[in-house]
Protein backbone atom coordinates (compact mmCIF):
# COMPACT_ATOMS: atom_id res chain seq x y z
CA UNK A 1 0.00 0.00 0.00
CA UNK A 2 2.78 2.32 1.07
CA UNK A 3 4.78 1.26 -1.96
CA UNK A 4 1.83 2.08 -4.19
CA UNK A 5 1.51 5.55 -2.64
CA UNK A 6 5.24 6.21 -3.01
CA UNK A 7 5.10 5.30 -6.65
CA UNK A 8 2.15 7.65 -7.23
CA UNK A 9 3.90 10.50 -5.42
CA UNK A 10 7.04 9.87 -7.44
CA UNK A 11 5.07 9.99 -10.75
CA UNK A 12 3.38 13.25 -9.73
CA UNK A 13 6.74 14.72 -8.76
CA UNK A 14 8.19 13.75 -12.17
CA UNK A 15 5.43 15.60 -13.90
CA UNK A 16 5.83 18.63 -11.70
CA UNK A 17 9.62 18.67 -12.18
CA UNK A 18 9.30 18.98 -15.96
CA UNK A 19 9.20 22.73 -16.79
CA UNK A 20 6.28 23.87 -18.92
CA UNK A 21 7.09 24.54 -22.60
CA UNK A 22 7.32 28.24 -23.39
CA UNK A 23 7.51 29.77 -26.84
CA UNK A 24 10.75 31.36 -27.86
CA UNK A 25 10.75 35.05 -27.09
CA UNK A 26 8.28 34.74 -24.27
CA UNK A 27 11.00 34.52 -21.62
CA UNK A 28 12.68 37.55 -23.13
CA UNK A 29 9.39 39.38 -23.16
CA UNK A 30 8.71 38.56 -19.53
CA UNK A 31 12.18 39.70 -18.54
CA UNK A 32 11.74 42.88 -20.52
CA UNK A 33 8.40 43.45 -18.88
CA UNK A 34 9.96 43.02 -15.44
CA UNK A 35 12.70 45.46 -16.36
CA UNK A 36 10.16 47.85 -17.77
CA UNK A 37 8.54 48.13 -14.37
CA UNK A 38 11.72 49.70 -13.13
CA UNK A 39 12.42 51.74 -16.20
CA UNK A 40 10.29 54.10 -18.29
CA UNK A 41 7.24 52.58 -20.00
CA UNK A 42 7.83 51.08 -23.47
CA UNK A 43 6.74 53.09 -26.46
CA UNK A 44 4.03 51.90 -28.86
CA UNK A 45 6.69 51.01 -31.45
CA UNK A 46 8.66 48.90 -28.99
CA UNK A 47 5.55 47.00 -28.04
CA UNK A 48 4.78 46.38 -31.71
CA UNK A 49 8.29 45.02 -32.28
CA UNK A 50 8.06 42.65 -29.31
CA UNK A 51 4.71 41.47 -30.57
CA UNK A 52 6.12 40.61 -34.01
CA UNK A 53 9.29 39.10 -32.52
CA UNK A 54 7.21 36.78 -30.38
CA UNK A 55 6.13 34.84 -33.46
CA UNK A 56 8.20 31.77 -34.35
CA UNK A 57 8.32 31.03 -38.10
CA UNK A 58 10.05 28.26 -40.01
CA UNK A 59 12.72 29.02 -42.63
CA UNK A 60 10.28 28.10 -45.42
CA UNK A 61 7.65 30.37 -43.91
CA UNK A 62 10.14 33.21 -43.76
CA UNK A 63 11.08 32.68 -47.41
CA UNK A 64 7.43 32.65 -48.48
CA UNK A 65 6.80 35.78 -46.43
CA UNK A 66 9.78 37.56 -48.00
CA UNK A 67 8.77 36.53 -51.54
CA UNK A 68 5.19 37.65 -51.02
CA UNK A 69 6.33 40.97 -49.59
CA UNK A 70 8.70 41.61 -52.49
CA UNK A 71 5.96 40.76 -54.97
CA UNK A 72 3.57 43.16 -53.27
CA UNK A 73 6.31 45.79 -53.27
CA UNK A 74 6.92 45.40 -57.01
CA UNK A 75 3.23 45.49 -57.79
CA UNK A 76 2.72 48.50 -55.56
CA UNK A 77 5.59 50.29 -57.25
CA UNK A 78 4.18 49.53 -60.69
CA UNK A 79 0.80 50.86 -59.63
CA UNK A 80 2.21 53.98 -58.10
CA UNK A 81 4.81 54.65 -60.81
CA UNK A 82 3.92 57.21 -63.45
CA UNK A 83 3.20 56.01 -66.98
CA UNK A 84 5.01 59.02 -68.44
CA UNK A 85 8.16 58.25 -70.46
CA UNK A 86 11.28 58.27 -68.29
CA UNK A 87 13.38 61.33 -68.93
CA UNK A 88 17.01 61.59 -67.91
CA UNK A 89 17.27 64.63 -65.67
CA UNK A 90 20.52 66.12 -66.87
CA UNK A 91 21.38 66.82 -70.47
CA UNK A 92 19.09 66.22 -73.42
CA UNK A 93 15.88 64.32 -72.89
CA UNK A 94 15.87 60.69 -73.94
CA UNK A 95 12.63 58.83 -74.19
CA UNK A 96 12.89 55.15 -73.40
CA UNK A 97 10.71 53.44 -75.97
CA UNK A 98 7.98 51.22 -74.59
CA UNK A 99 8.40 47.66 -75.77
CA UNK A 100 5.35 45.75 -76.91
CA UNK A 101 4.71 42.41 -75.34
CA UNK A 102 5.95 39.10 -76.65
CA UNK A 103 8.53 40.23 -79.09
CA UNK A 104 9.57 37.73 -81.67
CA UNK A 105 9.48 40.68 -84.06
CA UNK A 106 12.41 42.27 -82.22
CA UNK A 107 14.51 39.21 -81.48
CA UNK A 108 17.70 38.89 -83.57
CA UNK A 109 17.70 35.87 -85.84
CA UNK A 110 20.81 33.99 -87.03
CA UNK A 111 21.37 34.51 -90.75
CA UNK A 112 23.90 32.48 -92.69
CA UNK A 113 25.77 34.31 -95.45
CA UNK A 114 27.84 32.69 -98.15
CA UNK A 115 30.35 34.34 -100.45
CA UNK A 116 32.30 32.68 -103.20
CA UNK A 117 35.63 34.18 -104.10
CA UNK A 118 38.35 31.62 -104.39
CA UNK A 119 41.31 34.00 -104.57
CA UNK A 120 40.37 36.11 -101.52
CA UNK A 121 42.75 35.86 -98.57
CA UNK A 122 40.41 37.36 -96.03
CA UNK A 123 36.67 38.19 -96.09
CA UNK A 124 34.38 39.83 -93.52
CA UNK A 125 30.74 40.91 -93.50
CA UNK A 126 29.80 44.46 -92.61
CA UNK A 127 26.28 45.77 -92.29
CA UNK A 128 23.86 47.71 -90.17
CA UNK A 129 23.38 44.61 -88.01
CA UNK A 130 27.01 44.71 -86.80
CA UNK A 131 27.57 48.47 -86.87
CA UNK A 132 29.60 48.25 -90.11
CA UNK A 133 32.45 46.93 -88.00
CA UNK A 134 34.85 44.95 -90.18
CA UNK A 135 36.20 43.08 -87.15
CA UNK A 136 32.76 41.95 -85.95
CA UNK A 137 31.91 39.19 -88.43
CA UNK A 138 34.91 37.57 -90.13
CA UNK A 139 34.03 34.87 -92.65
CA UNK A 140 35.63 31.46 -92.61
CA UNK A 141 36.07 28.86 -95.29
CA UNK A 142 36.39 25.11 -95.23
CA UNK A 143 39.80 24.31 -96.75
CA UNK A 144 41.36 26.59 -99.35
CA UNK A 145 38.79 26.30 -102.12
CA UNK A 146 35.39 26.33 -100.41
CA UNK A 147 33.02 29.28 -100.11
CA UNK A 148 33.40 31.85 -97.35
CA UNK A 149 30.66 31.60 -94.73
CA UNK A 150 29.54 33.54 -91.68
CA UNK A 151 26.48 33.60 -89.49
CA UNK A 152 25.32 36.98 -88.25
CA UNK A 153 22.54 37.96 -85.88
CA UNK A 154 20.05 40.43 -87.34
CA UNK A 155 16.69 41.67 -86.15
CA UNK A 156 13.68 41.02 -88.39
CA UNK A 157 13.47 43.72 -91.05
CA UNK A 158 15.45 45.11 -93.96
CA UNK A 159 19.24 45.24 -93.67
CA UNK A 160 22.00 46.64 -95.84
CA UNK A 161 25.34 44.82 -95.95
CA UNK A 162 28.44 44.11 -98.00
CA UNK A 163 31.51 41.90 -97.95
CA UNK A 164 34.96 43.35 -97.35
CA UNK A 165 37.54 41.42 -99.32
CA UNK A 166 41.17 41.47 -98.17
CA UNK A 167 40.44 44.33 -95.80
CA UNK A 168 39.94 46.92 -98.53
CA UNK A 169 37.43 46.15 -101.25
CA UNK A 170 33.69 46.37 -100.60
CA UNK A 171 31.75 43.85 -102.66
CA UNK A 172 27.98 43.36 -102.90
CA UNK A 173 26.48 39.91 -102.37
CA UNK A 174 25.92 38.51 -105.88
CA UNK A 175 23.08 36.35 -104.54
CA UNK A 176 21.06 39.20 -103.05
CA UNK A 177 19.20 42.31 -104.16
CA UNK A 178 21.33 45.41 -104.63
CA UNK A 179 20.87 48.27 -102.20
CA UNK A 180 19.66 51.41 -103.88
CA UNK A 181 21.06 53.88 -101.39
CA UNK A 182 20.77 57.52 -102.32
CA UNK A 183 23.42 58.54 -99.85
CA UNK A 184 26.75 56.86 -100.62
CA UNK A 185 28.50 55.57 -103.70
CA UNK A 186 29.40 51.90 -103.57
CA UNK A 187 27.85 48.49 -103.92
CA UNK A 188 25.89 47.01 -101.08
CA UNK A 189 23.20 44.37 -100.80
CA UNK A 190 19.88 44.12 -99.06
CA UNK A 191 18.27 41.29 -97.16
CA UNK A 192 14.94 41.12 -95.40
CA UNK A 193 15.13 39.03 -92.27
CA UNK A 194 11.83 37.49 -91.37
CA UNK A 195 10.68 36.96 -87.79
CA UNK A 196 11.74 33.74 -86.09
Amino acid at each position, binding site marked *: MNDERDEMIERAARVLRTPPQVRSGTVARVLMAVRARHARPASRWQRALWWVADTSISARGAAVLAAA*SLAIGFVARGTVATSEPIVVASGPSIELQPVADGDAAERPVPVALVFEQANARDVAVVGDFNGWDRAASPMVRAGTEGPWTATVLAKPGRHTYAFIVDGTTLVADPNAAKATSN*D*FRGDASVMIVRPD
Partner: protein
Amino acid sequence: MRLNRRRGVLRTLAGICAMVPVGVFAGGVVGALGVVSAPASLAAQETRLLLISDDGTRDAVRRFLDAARVRGTPTEPLVSRALEGVAFRATPKEIERALAALEKRLKKSRELLGANSTVDELAAGADALAHGAPESALRDMRRIAPGRRLTVELGVLTELLAKDIAPKTAATMVLRLMARGASGTQLTELNAAVQKDVALGVKPVSALELRGRGVMSLLPPAGSVVTAQKR
Protein backbone atom coordinates in the same frame (compact mmCIF):
# COMPACT_ATOMS: atom_id res chain seq x y z
CA MET B 1 -7.27 29.36 -29.50
CA ARG B 2 -9.20 31.46 -31.98
CA LEU B 3 -7.69 34.60 -30.47
CA ASN B 4 -4.19 33.12 -30.91
CA ARG B 5 -4.88 32.29 -34.55
CA ARG B 6 -6.15 35.80 -35.17
CA ARG B 7 -3.06 37.23 -33.56
CA GLY B 8 -0.90 34.97 -35.75
CA VAL B 9 -2.62 36.26 -38.89
CA LEU B 10 -2.21 39.82 -37.70
CA ARG B 11 1.48 39.23 -37.07
CA THR B 12 1.96 37.78 -40.55
CA LEU B 13 0.26 40.83 -42.04
CA ALA B 14 2.45 43.09 -39.93
CA GLY B 15 5.52 41.24 -41.23
CA ILE B 16 4.38 41.68 -44.85
CA CYS B 17 3.74 45.39 -44.25
CA ALA B 18 7.24 45.72 -42.81
CA MET B 19 8.74 44.04 -45.92
CA VAL B 20 6.72 45.98 -48.53
CA PRO B 21 9.03 49.01 -48.41
CA VAL B 22 11.90 46.62 -49.14
CA GLY B 23 10.03 45.37 -52.20
CA VAL B 24 9.26 48.92 -53.28
CA PHE B 25 12.92 49.78 -52.89
CA ALA B 26 13.99 46.73 -54.93
CA GLY B 27 11.44 47.65 -57.62
CA GLY B 28 12.84 51.16 -57.64
CA VAL B 29 16.36 49.84 -58.11
CA VAL B 30 15.26 47.73 -61.08
CA GLY B 31 13.41 50.72 -62.55
CA ALA B 32 16.45 52.89 -62.06
CA LEU B 33 18.49 50.39 -64.08
CA GLY B 34 16.30 51.31 -67.05
CA VAL B 35 17.29 54.93 -66.63
CA VAL B 36 20.93 53.96 -66.19
CA SER B 37 20.77 52.03 -69.47
CA ALA B 38 20.20 55.28 -71.41
CA PRO B 39 23.59 56.79 -70.54
CA ALA B 40 25.05 53.30 -71.01
CA SER B 41 23.77 53.26 -74.60
CA LEU B 42 25.29 56.72 -75.11
CA ALA B 43 28.62 55.33 -73.96
CA ALA B 44 28.20 52.38 -76.34
CA GLN B 45 27.51 54.79 -79.22
CA GLU B 46 30.59 56.78 -78.28
CA THR B 47 32.67 53.59 -78.39
CA ARG B 48 31.31 52.81 -81.84
CA LEU B 49 32.28 56.24 -83.07
CA LEU B 50 35.88 55.26 -82.37
CA LEU B 51 35.58 53.05 -85.47
CA ILE B 52 35.80 56.32 -87.43
CA SER B 53 39.54 56.71 -87.79
CA ASP B 54 39.51 60.21 -89.27
CA ASP B 55 39.39 62.75 -86.42
CA GLY B 56 37.63 65.43 -88.47
CA THR B 57 34.86 63.06 -89.58
CA ARG B 58 34.45 61.69 -86.08
CA ASP B 59 34.12 65.18 -84.59
CA ALA B 60 31.62 66.22 -87.25
CA VAL B 61 29.51 63.12 -86.61
CA ARG B 62 29.70 63.61 -82.84
CA ARG B 63 28.57 67.22 -83.16
CA PHE B 64 25.68 66.20 -85.36
CA LEU B 65 24.60 63.46 -82.95
CA ASP B 66 24.74 65.82 -79.96
CA ALA B 67 22.53 68.31 -81.78
CA ALA B 68 20.13 65.56 -82.92
CA ARG B 69 19.85 64.31 -79.35
CA VAL B 70 18.88 67.79 -78.18
CA ARG B 71 16.23 67.88 -80.92
CA GLY B 72 14.88 64.56 -79.60
CA THR B 73 15.80 62.50 -82.66
CA PRO B 74 16.70 58.84 -82.01
CA THR B 75 20.42 58.69 -82.70
CA GLU B 76 20.95 54.97 -83.26
CA PRO B 77 19.95 55.05 -86.96
CA LEU B 78 22.14 58.13 -87.43
CA VAL B 79 25.18 56.38 -85.91
CA SER B 80 24.57 53.40 -88.19
CA ARG B 81 24.30 55.63 -91.26
CA ALA B 82 27.50 57.49 -90.32
CA LEU B 83 29.38 54.20 -89.96
CA GLU B 84 27.98 53.02 -93.28
CA GLY B 85 29.34 56.21 -94.84
CA VAL B 86 32.75 55.53 -93.32
CA ALA B 87 32.69 51.95 -94.63
CA PHE B 88 31.99 53.34 -98.11
CA ARG B 89 34.75 55.94 -97.68
CA ALA B 90 32.35 58.87 -97.99
CA THR B 91 33.68 62.35 -97.30
CA PRO B 92 32.69 64.14 -94.06
CA LYS B 93 30.48 66.44 -96.16
CA GLU B 94 28.67 63.48 -97.74
CA ILE B 95 28.17 61.88 -94.36
CA GLU B 96 26.79 65.08 -92.84
CA ARG B 97 24.45 65.51 -95.79
CA ALA B 98 23.23 61.93 -95.41
CA LEU B 99 22.68 62.38 -91.68
CA ALA B 100 20.72 65.59 -92.16
CA ALA B 101 18.47 63.94 -94.74
CA LEU B 102 17.97 60.89 -92.54
CA GLU B 103 17.11 63.00 -89.51
CA LYS B 104 14.44 64.79 -91.51
CA ARG B 105 12.94 61.47 -92.61
CA LEU B 106 13.08 60.03 -89.09
CA LYS B 107 11.08 63.00 -87.88
CA LYS B 108 8.50 62.51 -90.61
CA SER B 109 8.43 58.79 -89.93
CA ARG B 110 7.65 59.41 -86.25
CA GLU B 111 4.93 61.84 -87.23
CA LEU B 112 3.29 59.22 -89.47
CA LEU B 113 3.86 56.05 -87.44
CA GLY B 114 3.25 57.59 -84.05
CA ALA B 115 5.41 58.60 -81.11
CA ASN B 116 5.20 55.14 -79.54
CA SER B 117 6.94 53.49 -82.48
CA THR B 118 10.25 51.76 -81.84
CA VAL B 119 13.50 53.17 -83.16
CA ASP B 120 13.74 50.27 -85.62
CA GLU B 121 10.27 51.07 -86.96
CA LEU B 122 11.16 54.74 -87.34
CA ALA B 123 14.34 53.82 -89.22
CA ALA B 124 12.41 51.42 -91.47
CA GLY B 125 9.80 54.13 -92.08
CA ALA B 126 12.52 56.62 -92.94
CA ASP B 127 14.00 54.18 -95.47
CA ALA B 128 10.58 53.61 -97.03
CA LEU B 129 10.10 57.38 -97.36
CA ALA B 130 13.55 57.68 -98.95
CA HIS B 131 12.44 55.19 -101.60
CA GLY B 132 9.27 57.15 -102.33
CA ALA B 133 6.67 55.48 -100.10
CA PRO B 134 3.51 57.59 -99.90
CA GLU B 135 3.17 59.22 -96.49
CA SER B 136 -0.41 57.96 -96.26
CA ALA B 137 0.88 54.37 -96.55
CA LEU B 138 2.85 54.66 -93.32
CA ARG B 139 -0.11 56.19 -91.52
CA ASP B 140 -2.44 53.48 -92.85
CA MET B 141 -0.06 50.70 -91.85
CA ARG B 142 -0.14 51.86 -88.26
CA ARG B 143 -3.91 52.26 -88.40
CA ILE B 144 -4.41 48.74 -89.76
CA ALA B 145 -2.09 47.10 -87.24
CA PRO B 146 -1.68 49.34 -84.20
CA GLY B 147 -0.22 46.66 -81.96
CA ARG B 148 2.17 45.14 -84.47
CA ARG B 149 5.85 45.79 -85.12
CA LEU B 150 5.99 47.17 -88.67
CA THR B 151 9.70 46.79 -89.34
CA VAL B 152 9.32 43.86 -91.74
CA GLU B 153 6.26 45.31 -93.51
CA LEU B 154 8.04 48.62 -94.08
CA GLY B 155 11.13 46.77 -95.28
CA VAL B 156 9.09 44.83 -97.82
CA LEU B 157 7.43 48.02 -99.05
CA THR B 158 10.88 49.62 -99.42
CA GLU B 159 12.17 46.69 -101.45
CA LEU B 160 9.12 46.69 -103.74
CA LEU B 161 9.71 50.39 -104.35
CA ALA B 162 13.40 49.70 -105.01
CA LYS B 163 12.25 47.42 -107.86
CA ASP B 164 10.67 50.45 -109.48
CA ILE B 165 7.10 49.44 -108.73
CA ALA B 166 4.90 52.54 -108.57
CA PRO B 167 4.57 53.74 -104.94
CA LYS B 168 0.79 53.63 -104.98
CA THR B 169 0.69 50.09 -106.43
CA ALA B 170 3.25 48.73 -103.97
CA ALA B 171 1.65 50.43 -100.96
CA THR B 172 -1.85 49.28 -101.92
CA MET B 173 -0.73 45.65 -102.19
CA VAL B 174 1.11 45.66 -98.84
CA LEU B 175 -1.83 47.36 -97.10
CA ARG B 176 -4.37 45.00 -98.62
CA LEU B 177 -2.35 41.98 -97.51
CA MET B 178 -1.91 43.41 -94.02
CA ALA B 179 -5.62 44.12 -93.74
CA ARG B 180 -6.31 40.49 -94.63
CA GLY B 181 -3.95 39.34 -91.86
CA ALA B 182 -0.81 38.47 -93.84
CA SER B 183 2.12 37.85 -91.50
CA GLY B 184 5.57 39.41 -91.75
CA THR B 185 6.86 36.05 -92.92
CA GLN B 186 4.29 35.90 -95.76
CA LEU B 187 5.20 39.41 -96.85
CA THR B 188 8.90 38.52 -96.79
CA GLU B 189 8.19 35.49 -98.95
CA LEU B 190 6.16 37.64 -101.33
CA ASN B 191 9.13 39.96 -101.75
CA ALA B 192 11.50 37.04 -102.31
CA ALA B 193 9.18 35.56 -104.95
CA VAL B 194 8.87 38.90 -106.76
CA GLN B 195 12.65 39.21 -106.65
CA LYS B 196 13.06 35.78 -108.28
CA ASP B 197 10.46 36.56 -110.97
CA VAL B 198 12.15 39.86 -111.79
CA ALA B 199 15.51 38.08 -112.08
CA LEU B 200 13.84 35.73 -114.61
CA GLY B 201 12.69 38.71 -116.66
CA VAL B 202 9.11 39.22 -115.42
CA LYS B 203 8.04 42.87 -115.11
CA PRO B 204 8.11 43.85 -111.38
CA VAL B 205 4.54 45.11 -111.32
CA SER B 206 3.26 41.92 -112.98
CA ALA B 207 5.26 39.77 -110.55
CA LEU B 208 3.79 41.68 -107.62
CA GLU B 209 0.24 41.34 -108.94
CA LEU B 210 0.65 37.60 -109.51
CA ARG B 211 2.46 36.79 -106.24
CA GLY B 212 0.21 39.13 -104.27
CA ARG B 213 -2.85 37.26 -105.48
CA GLY B 214 -1.16 34.00 -104.51
CA VAL B 215 -0.63 35.14 -100.91
CA MET B 216 -4.15 36.58 -100.81
CA SER B 217 -5.60 33.19 -101.70
CA LEU B 218 -4.03 31.69 -98.57
CA LEU B 219 -5.56 34.28 -96.25
CA PRO B 220 -8.94 34.20 -94.51
CA PRO B 221 -11.72 36.07 -96.30
CA ALA B 222 -11.94 39.83 -95.89
CA GLY B 223 -13.82 40.96 -92.81
CA SER B 224 -12.90 37.92 -90.73
CA VAL B 225 -9.60 39.38 -89.60
CA VAL B 226 -9.16 41.35 -86.42
CA THR B 227 -7.14 44.28 -87.60
CA ALA B 228 -5.23 44.91 -84.39
CA GLN B 229 -3.14 41.86 -85.09
CA LYS B 230 0.05 40.88 -83.45
CA ARG B 231 2.61 38.75 -85.10
